[in-house]
């Protein structure tokens, strides 16, 4: 653009202004695009989600404030907070809460640690890695009916293989189902068996995304495999570890299938003394066996509230860990 020299200074200034304005306009348009596109990204998810995810959540909450029977699920009688206050005095509920907590701890912690270890091994260059990775998922894919039979055979009191093995080393038979701790350990072992490979696969996917150069520079610094694992792999996996911890916690809170199948006929009671009745089982018993839908909904929402209490605690722990030095070994 040729500019008359006489007005050079001023014109140049004007030009510059014009250009700036243009840039700013483009920028603003661009920002508007930025502002709207996220909604476009989440809209499809949230459309169906509202109907099939949110509606049941809120409806369950609404149900928990009513007296409702499965005999007539549409007839609701306003009951205020009665379902909740009743739970506070319900020793079966407290028992289930305790069991959920203990089974949750003894199943989740080993499960996630094992999953992390297995994922690390699978991340090495291996022969038959595809085979190993597919087999990882078989416990999760095996039908519950089949798994039941197998574990009943393993933990049987009279003819179980576990007791037979204990007998070989001179330990008396254990009545797995009837002892409080033995039954909870048995249930936890089913949980661990079913979910370890599942979590390992999730970790593996995240490990694949860790850039090689991080390992390379760590190796150059003379870090051993173990040090690389601690200083490179774990920090890079943090969001995924958070994810598995959250999901496993939710899963542990809602634990249902494994204790039900371990209990055999009438398994919703979780044993004669409710020794392995979890919140999930108690909710099922109240809702689907005794038909107290309102009460079952209150148990469900209590689980929900418990999780809402637990997660901020998690966040606090994560925050504390975050402050730790040793982020990177580079």
């Amino acid at each position: 653009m040729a500019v008359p020299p006489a007005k050079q200074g001023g014109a140049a200034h004007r030009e510059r202004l014009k250009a700036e304005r243009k840039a700013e306009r483009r920028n603003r348009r661009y920002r508007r695009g930025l502002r709207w596109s996220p909604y476009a990204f989440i809209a499809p998810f949230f459309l169906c989600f509202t109907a099939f995810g949110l509606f049941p959540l809120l409806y369950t909450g609404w149900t928990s404030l009513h007296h409702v029977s499965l005999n007539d699920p549409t007839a609701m009688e306003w009951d205020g907070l009665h379902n909740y206050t009743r739970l506070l005095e319900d020793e079966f509920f407290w028992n289930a809460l305790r069991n959920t907590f203990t089974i949750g701890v003894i199943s989740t912690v080993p499960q996630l640690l094992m999953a992390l270890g297995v994922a690390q091994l699978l991340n090495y260059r291996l022969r038959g890695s595809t085979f190993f990775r597919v087999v990882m998922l078989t416990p999760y894919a095996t039908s519950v009916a089949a798994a039941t039979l197998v574990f009943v055979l393993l933990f049987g009191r009279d003819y179980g293989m576990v007791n037979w093995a204990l007998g070989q080393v001179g330990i008396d038979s254990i009545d797995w189902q009837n002892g409080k701790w033995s039954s909870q350990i048995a249930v936890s072992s089913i949980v661990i068996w079913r979910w370890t490979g599942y979590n390992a696969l999730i970790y593996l996917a995240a490990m694949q995304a860790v850039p090689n150069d991080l390992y390379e520079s760590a190796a150059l610094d003379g870090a051993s495999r173990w040090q690389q694992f601690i200083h490179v792999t774990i920090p890079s996996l943090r969001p995924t570890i958070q994810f598995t911890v959250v999901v496993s916690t939710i899963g542990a809170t809602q634990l249902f299938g494994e204790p039900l199948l371990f209990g055999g006929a009438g398994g919703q009671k979780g044993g004669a003394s409710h020794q392995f009745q979890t919140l999930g089982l108690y909710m099922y018993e109240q809702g689907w066996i005794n038909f107290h839908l309102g009460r079952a909904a209150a148990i469900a929402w209590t689980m929900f509230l418990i999780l809402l209490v637990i997660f901020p605690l998690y966040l606090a722990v994560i925050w504390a860990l975050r402050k730790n030095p040793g982020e990177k070994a580079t």
Partner: protein
Amino acid sequence: MRMKSHTSHRAVALTAVVALGAVLLAGCADDSDTPGSRSSGGTNGKGKITVTIGVFGVFGYKQAGLYDEYERLNPGVTIKETSIERLDQYYPQLLTHLGTGSGMQDIQALEVGNISEIVNRHSDQFVDLGKAQGVDKNSFVPWKWAQATTASGRTVGLGTDIGPIAICYRKDLFKKAGLPTDPEKVGKLWTGDWQKYVNAGKAYMANAPQGTTFVDAAGGVYNAVISGSVERYYDKDGKLIYKDSPAVKEAWNLAMDVIEGKMTAKLKQFDQTWDQAYANGRFATVSCPPWMLGYIKEKAGTKAEDQWGIASAPKPANWGGSFLSVPEAVKNKDEAIKLATWLTAPEQQAKLFQKQGSFPSSQAAYELPEVASAKHDFFDDAPIGEIFTDAAKDIPTLVIGEKDQIIQNTITDVGILQVEQQGKTPDQGWAAAVKDIDNALDQ
């Protein structure tokens, strides 16, 4: 929002929304081209009719060839059976469907444990089969008919099978323990009194073959005793009386005697370990309705062939049985009523007993040769027709209340098991059961 000239970004964003929205709506919209029949049965336009029937477990109609026979007799009718193995999945599903008036089968089976609830709360949602053409009230045993009939006289279910109780016992074990083995003599050991049965158990245990016990489970004894009563958990007016019902007390005390005398194998019926105990011959007696015979044959295996005998029980009692009902909300009501009537008629019930071992609830069927002269080869050709017809004769009309099933299961699975398997005292077991039942029944 100021609407200005649009940018490529926004255009893209909008396009994305529209495109994905379209995909989604296509997904969310009801545009599937599967021939979705809402009520599952219906005509398909060629005058052909499909009647659907929902059962739990296996009723054996298909296996006994009754569907094929009906389809032959009624050209243009096809029968489709849907079966859910577990009652505790089947019944809540049925209630959910009833509550929304959608998803029912043309015929729905009902278990005896749930019939009272259906009669009390849902009778208006089912067709009154008592007035259906071809249904003869008098062909059924009276108490069976009464169980499915409301106070106002509507009959919502037609009886299929019943479960008169006998005692199955191991002849070989009885012999080793010095007890008689002839069914006649064995029955005489305890005729008329369950206490005598427990006494026989004491005699057995005195010389019991190594590793065997007299019964499989104390809960089984409790169940057999209580099933022969008139009022157990509710009285005739529907009032809850289980805490001080004499019948419950008697059955409970007998079960406690059995535990105290170490006569039980401490098993839970229908669990895997129970099956294994059958296979290993671990216990000598079990209360057995006709439907249990096939189970014993299957689990005890060929090596126990002809070792099991069948003797009469101390007192007549009934365990199990079902009904067929037709919901009001289904499309094929008339066809469904016709089929349900036919399936529960004496001739078909007799055939079902012959093929599947479900004992008829139709007393008219007892005269028929399929029942009267039936024998069971696994049980040393025991005349089962005769035995169970006898056992069915004097079964009292048991008052069943709405929550009978829950009370019964809690007493056996909590109360008795705590004493039997966890070493609690009888008082502790009873208190635990009561607490549990009160919690379940509390409105």
